[in-house]
Structure formats: structure tokens, C-alpha cells
């Protein structure tokens, strides 16, 4: 991890290379000089669905193409541009960096289903904040999963940030309370709170999350200032159900999508964005500390459509 980092786009493009090539290829296959008729549109819709964009978004893109160009000869490039435009159109307003200004300490809670990458994302953000001169404190709030506490502790060491922890099975809400208290006492400007992974259809686990948020508010009425939903890049349409349930339980304020360095296309992010208009802060394109990148709607959309920079 010591060599010079390439720029953002090339990293994202690298990460998305496989997916965009794949999508690009199928788009090319459909539209190398071809009349845009109903059959062609249906094929395009399929290709978009195969990128996890979901049926609705796929339909919107094809509708838009059909509006101006139906029955006309279209090139592959035009189709890609149009796709990128439509996707970028819905994502650009949501391109919002994580703004941690304001009241001190800023309290950030990470939520999501099991294995989506909450702890890793928290760790990466902690390292970043520390490097930018902030003084974060971490709360190992996943008191359920084996060694989750140890995992946060390792990130705490990497970031040079203290970690508030309790034994496994301890009350996560109480721990969050303690972390904020300690932050106030020791003048930390950020509190990053990890939570246990939970499937959104488990009522009792979602109740537990509500309790964590409630207890945080007891300590700081305006906290948590940010609740970040961490979405797995390989997720399909279930992302929508996840966003819905976590929004309801914990007033999610923004999204991070992880694991976009594999073959997954991340199209589910577009579905979530369309439906809930949630700000997108970062995307994760690797396991390294530097592999958390600010979200760029334009780059994401163009990479998804198989276009260069």
C-alpha cells in the first residue's frame, strides 16, 4: 500500500472494469448500428436488469431512449451516453461528502445487515479522519458477533484512536452512551459507533437498534448526527428493503456502498437512490485504508455504462 495511488477515476474504473465491460459488451452487442425498435429496447432493458438496476430504472432508461430515438439508427456510444446520463441524473443530487462540521462531538452510527462491511468502513473513516487532524473515538458497538470488538480494536490501533468497548453480550445502547460521555469528557470531536449486523426483517434486532438511537439522544438530543447505512455492492433488489427498514428504525442519513472492486455492478445503489433519495457518501473499492472513495455520480454512472472518464 505504499506505491503512489492512482487517481480516483482510474481506481473506480479498475474496480468497476469487469462490470462495465460486461455491460458495455452486451450493450455493444445490441446496438452496433441497429434500429431502435421494441425488441432492441427489451434487450437493453434485460441488460440493465442484469446490472442490478432493477426493472423500474431499466424501464426508465429505455423509455428515455425510446422518446427521442425510437425507430432511428443508434450507435453503441449513444446508448451508453444516454444510460450514463439517466443514471447520473438521479445520482448527482445525492453526491454528498460526509460533512462532519457542527456540534461537537459529531456522532456517527454505522448500520446494516450482517457482512455488509460496517466495521471495515468505520475503520477506514477513522483512519481518514485522524489523518485530517480530527480526534475520533470509536465504539465497538457490535457486542454480539464473535471478535467484532477485537476487529474494531485493530482499526483503533491503525487509526491511533481510542476504542470504547465492553465484554461480548453487553448492552450496545449503554456502550454508545458511554462512548459519547467519554468523547465529551476527553474532547474528542467525533464518535464513530459500530453496530451489530442485523437482517432488517428481524423485529427484535431492529428494536434493539431503535434503543441504541434512543439512548444516544438521551446523552445528546441532536445526535446521532449521521446514521450511515452500509450496503454490500453485491446485493440485489433486497437493498431497497434494507434501506426502507433501516430508515424507519434509525433515520438513516446517508449510504456507503462497499465491495465494488469485484464483479458486482452495484446497480442496486441506483434503485435505492431513486426510491429514497438518500445521500451517497462513499464507495468501497478494496480492503485497504485508502480504498474508500468519495462518491462521484458522474464517474460511477459513466463507469457503469462502460464509458471512459
Amino acid at each position, binding site marked *: 500500500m505504499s506505491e503512489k495511488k492512482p487517481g480516483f477515476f482510474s481506481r473506480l474504473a479498475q474496480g468497476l472494469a469487469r462490470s462495465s465491460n460486461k455491460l458495455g459488451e452486451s450493450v455493444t452487442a445490441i446496438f452496433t448500428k441497429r434500429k431502435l425498435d421494441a425488441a432492441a429496447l427489451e434487450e437493453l432493458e434485460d441488460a440493465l436488469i442484469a*446490472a442490478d438496476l*432493477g*426493472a423500474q430504472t431499466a424501464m426508465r432508461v429505455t423509455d428515455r431512449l425510446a422518446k427521442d430515438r425510437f425507430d432511428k439508427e443508434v450507435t453503441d456510444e449513444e446508448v451508453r451516453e444516454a444510460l450514463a446520463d439517466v443514471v447520473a441524473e438521479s445520482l448527482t443530487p445525492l453526491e454528498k461528502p460526509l460533512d462532519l462540521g457542527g456540534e461537537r462531538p459529531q456522532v456517527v452510527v454505522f448500520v446494516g445487515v450482517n457482512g455488509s462491511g460496517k466495521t471495515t468502513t468505520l475503520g477506514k473513516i477513522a483512519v481518514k479522519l485522524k489523518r485530517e487532524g480530527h480526534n475520533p473515538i470509536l465504539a465497538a458497538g457490535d457486542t454480539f458477533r*464473535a471478535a467484532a470488538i477485537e476487529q474494531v480494536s*485493530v482499526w483503533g490501533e491503525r487509526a491511533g484512536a481510542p476504542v470504547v468497548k465492553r465484554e461480548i453480550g453487553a448492552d450496545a445502547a449503554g456502550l454508545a452512551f458511554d462512548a459519547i460521555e467519554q468523547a465529551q469528557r476527553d474532547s474528542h470531536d467525533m464518535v464513530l459507533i459500530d453496530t451489530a449486523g442485523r437482517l432488517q426483517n*428481524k423485529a427484535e434486532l431492529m428494536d434493539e437498534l431503535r434503543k441504541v438511537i434512543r439512548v444516544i439522544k438521551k446523552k445528546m438530543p441532536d445526535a446521532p448526527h449521521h446514521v450511515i447505512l452500509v450496503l454490500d455492492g*453485491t446485493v440485489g433488489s*433486497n437493498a431497497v428493503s434494507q434501506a426502507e427498514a433501516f430508515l424507519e428504525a434509525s433515520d438513516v442519513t446517508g449510504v456507503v456502498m462497499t465491495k465494488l*472492486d469485484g464483479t458486482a455492478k452495484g446497480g442496486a445503489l441506483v434503485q435505492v437512490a431513486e426510491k429514497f433519495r438518500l445521500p451517497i457518501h462513499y464507495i468501497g473499492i478494496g480492503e485497504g485504508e485508502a480504498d474508500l472513495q468519495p462518491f462521484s455520480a458522474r464517474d460511477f454512472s459513466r463507469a457503469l455504462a462502460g464509458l471512459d472518464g
Partner: protein
Amino acid sequence: MFDALTERLGGVFDKLTGRGVLSEKDVDAALREIRVALLEADVALPVVKSAVNQIKERAVGEDVIRAVAPGQQVVKIVHDALVDLLGGEGEPEGLALEGEPPVAILMAGLQGSGKTTTSAKLAKRISERHKKKVLLASLDTRRPAAMEQLQQLAGQVDVAFLPIVKGQKAVDIAKRAMTAGKLQGFDVVILDTAGRTSIDEDMMSEAQAIATATRPRETLLVADALTGQDAVETAKRFHERLPLTGLVLTRMDGDGRGGAALSMRHVTGLPIKFLGVSEKPDGLDAFDAKRLAGRILGRGDIVSLVEKAAQDVDEEKAARMAKKMAKGKFDLEDLREQFGQLKKMGGLGGIMGMLPGMNKKMQAQASAAGMDDKMLTRQEAIILSMTPQERAKPEILKASRKKRIAAGSGVTVADVNKLIKMHRQMADMMKKAGKKGRGGLAGMMGGMPPGMAGMNPADMGAATQDLLGGKAPSGASMPGLGSGNSKPASLPGLGGGAPLGPDGLPIGLPKK
């Protein structure tokens, strides 16, 4: 699982079954709906195409249009096609563990797919069911505290764990694990690897090297059931590089549409060996294509429920209770034990998830009506606030005692009254059932009433709907502590005989 798909197909077939005769156009419409439903359920595109073609061919071949009940016919065709896609009928293939010990099982998959948790579950299963000596080894040198995670889980499931040597490479750990397995007489060595993306060349070569060094008898790809279209790509690539022998789908207890199961099975041709269905160490189910396909079509997962009941019911305790109840004795302590039993079976949520015809909406309705595990806990608390004497002889409960109990358990006196009334009704029913002799009590407490096996899933769907609609369902009976055959239906553990109160809700449910 598969709820959304169930609803979708349900909508299609409602339309079809509404009318007596099918036109060709109806079939086409149904196929289109099936296609969209499968796509929205995250089944990968090529798999959807193949499924729809199969369904179409069969539909045409069987001359659906002239069939007596075309809707039913289409349901059956879709069901059969899904069964085939999921690997066909027959006994689910277990693990291949024969060979010269130690036999290696290699776990591979993307980051966060659930490899470590699954490794521990598998270790527990193999040591308990196959009576083999298992060694767990973590080869994850990348994710912080991954090794400690498996170490802690190994402790929880009481299986040996290969000591951590910091700084050692994954392949070397694998070799060390095999040597340790051989020297210390282990039958099976489970190798948990780091999560990797399929296009990370270094990591994929590492995985290959591990496989070459350990010659695993089973190499399992662990995948998240919530995966979208990428399921195909990931499965294909891992299959190309590793000697995969089977798939494990995790997070099947989520509300994901589960299309990944269909997709991965289809592109690799590998059997789905297990399903991860909870975070707990025993949350690993055997896979059965027919059951899953039935579930996709809204027929519920009765087999799972029966299995769970049979597994979780404490036979001895049940026999003891049956004897007691035969004499017409069923005190509040017994009721409390039933609550415990129900909780052990995954709580009401877990059980309802397996009931046929029970979709997400109905589950939400049920929990909105207070029919959730909180209710169980509350009622348990009420009983726990009673003295042993009160539990044995509820008739001594007068106003002042009730007040004390209500205060002790944080409920109102009315809640206490409800519980007492419910108990009395149950006790009465049991007394009656007891007099009727066998079939009643023997079946009631045995965990699996006779006649369960031949139960018609369709009836179950209706029964469940009735139950939620506030009517007493008829005919079907549920496993667990329910009644024997020819008694009204009952939710498992909610008591025997007729567990429905006068208001039609299962006993224990607060009235609206």
C-alpha cells in the same frame, strides 16, 4: 425466504384460478409475469430465460388449456421446473467425509458472505451428527480479528481450534492444520479462508494453492442469499478456479428474494448443500429442492417446521407432561414450559416464517396485533411473578395476589386475568382431549402428531389464513405440542386441543 416471489406468482395464479378456462393469451401473460417475478427476485437473466422456456414447453406439452384446473396445472408446472432448476428431487446430498482422515473441507467466498460463521456451524453439525472429531482452522490473514472470531466460535460450539501463529501465510497455515489433524487424530479439518473477490488474481491463486496443498474432499462456496445478479459471475469464476463441490447459501432468514440460490445452482450445476438460517451456531439447514420450490410457490415450509419440532421438543419432558395432562392436570408452570418450547423453536416469528401462505404482510399484521415474541416474554414474566403455589393452583389467585403479580411483571391486572383465562381454557381442552384417549395426548406431546406426514399443504395455507383472519381453522394440525389428528388446528406449542380463544384468536393473543 422467497416471500416476494411467492406474492408475485400468487398474483399471477390468482388471476388464472379466478377463471375456469385458460386461453393461450393467459398462458403468455402468466409466462411474462413469471419472467418479471423471477428477475425481480434476483434470479440471473440467463437462468430466468431457461426457466421460462422450460415452463413454456411443459405448459404446451401438457395441454394446459384443456385441463380441468388450468391454474393448478400451471402452478404444478412452475413448481416442477423450479424443483429441477434447484437440483431435482431426491435426498439432499450430504457431505462427503469418507476417505483417509483427516478429510479437509475448504470454505471459500466473497468478503462478508458468512464463511466463518458457516465454518463453525458446519463443525458443530459434523461433530454432533456425524460424530467426527473436527478441527477448525482460520486461514484468514487479512481481515482484522478474523482468526479470533473463528477461535471464539470454536469455543462456543465446543470444537478444537488450530492455535493462531501470527505472521504465517495462509497456505502454510493450511499445511499446519493438516499435519496437526493427522498427528492429533482428527477426522475432519475445516479450513476457513479469507474473503476474496473473484477477480483478485493473487487471492485466487492463493486459494488454488491451498486447495492443491490440502486436497479438500469438499470445497464449499459460501454465498449471501441476498446477492443480486452478480451471483452468476461469482459462482462461475470461483467454480473455474477451485474444485468446488457444493454451495452454501447464507442469510436465508432474511427477506431476500433468494434468486441467487437458483442462479448459482444453475450456472455451476453444484448442489446447494446447506442454508444458513440464523446467526446461532445451529442455524444451518439441509437443502431440499422440493421444499424450496414449494416455498417459492407459497406452500410454506412445513417440512422444516416438523423437523424443527421433532428436533427441539424434549421427548422426556413431553412424555412427563402428557402423563400429567392425561390426569387433567395442566398448571401454569406447564404453560410456562410450553412458552419456553416455542421460543426454542425460533419464536413465533421463526415459526410463522415457515407456515404456508404466510407472507410478509400477514406476518406484519400478526406482529401488529401483538402476536410476537414480546407477547411470549410478557406472559412468561407474569407466570414468573407467581409463587410456586400459585402456579400449581391458579384458583387461589384473588385480587390482591393478581395486583402483586401485575406489579411484579409490569403488566395490568387485566393482562393477568387474560393469561389465567387462557390457561383455564387450555386446561379444560386438555382434560377433554385426555378423556378421548390416544391420538389426543400421545400425539399431542410426541412432537409430531400422527397424520402430519400426509397433511395437505394447501389446507395449511387456508388454516393459517383463517387463523389470522380471526376464524378457527379446521382440519389441519400443527406439529409440536398441538393436538393429534382430527382436532382443530393449533400453532405448535400454543397448547393442545383447541388453542383458540372464544374470540377466535390463538390463545394468548390480546384481543383487539
